[in-house]
């Protein structure tokens, strides 16, 4: 058995594996479009300016201020309103709750393109 060949092959494989893993890490941390962060702040702006008690108002604000929406969902008690805006293979979900009083709240959820 030629040990030199085995060591060579092992080192080549090691170099390739290191390269692939490092390239993968770099590629997933490379993000040129800050959809999620921008949407997070836009949603905060909506929350600061409105209590979002009205689903149509919330949907209107989302469509007005947030780009790259995939879906909007508004849940208050047993009422659930969902609007699918577009489709995307990667979707970030941002959830916020708005409290109106003891036991009284709505859950707001938006999906933005990744």
């Amino acid at each position: 058995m030629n040990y030199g060949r085995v060591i060579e092959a092992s080192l080549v494989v090691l170099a390739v594996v290191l390269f692939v893993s490092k390239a993968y890490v770099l590629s997933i941390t490379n993000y040129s479009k800050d959809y999620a962060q921008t949407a997070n702040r836009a949603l905060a702006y909506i929350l600061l300016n409105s209590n979002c008690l009205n689903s149509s108002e919330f949907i209107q604000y989302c469509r007005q201020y947030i780009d790259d929406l995939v879906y909007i969902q508004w849940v208050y008690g047993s009422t659930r309103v969902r609007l699918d805006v577009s489709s995307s293979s990667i979707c970030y979900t941002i959830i916020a709750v708005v409290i109106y009083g003891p036991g009284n709240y709505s859950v707001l959820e938006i999906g933005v393109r990744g």
Partner: protein
Amino acid sequence: MNQRGQVLLLAVLILSILLLIALSFHRVNSPRIYIKRDYVQAAMLVQLARVWIQYNYCIICIRETSRLLYQLNQTYGLNIPALTNSTYRSFNLSEDSGYYNYTVVFYTQGGKYVRVTVYYNYFFRGFYLKRIGGEIVRYKNYTLQYFHKYEGPWGILFLKNLSLTDPRKQADIRYIGDGLWVVGFPADYQYYIVYDKFGIPVRVGG
């Protein structure tokens, strides 16, 4: 190791390094991860503070809504940090003039996180007469300054046009601009309460 293998190994290593350097040049310095603790968490606390003010710092309301937020934070993974809070208020309400100042501050371990101030003041400007149906009614006329101030990770945000409404529909309410309102109501009332778009009562008059 023979020479061919060494050259091949060296070539692979050099190629890997060059490709990684090339890739790093294309990398943008913003991370792809979703920043969970951003403005939304602080905005939810602003809404909580508005509810407390709406209920005039009712102890039961503060306790119940805080517990509700804690539960929702666990259920939905909202990532709201551990908080303490302080509530302050000062007021002086008379017939001719007055003010009311509510302040709620939320603290994290790192210090102040969110501060919400709801402030109004009013001044009596005189009387005017208004014809309603077949009779003439004497109205009190006030100027009112009203705003919300939200301090948080976004900096400072003022809300000034807060869409005051009158459920009794007897008052004259007009927005002048820059947080200033003109409010008139029948002189039979010693004071009058109007509500902003968040349901917070604003009392005009003594």
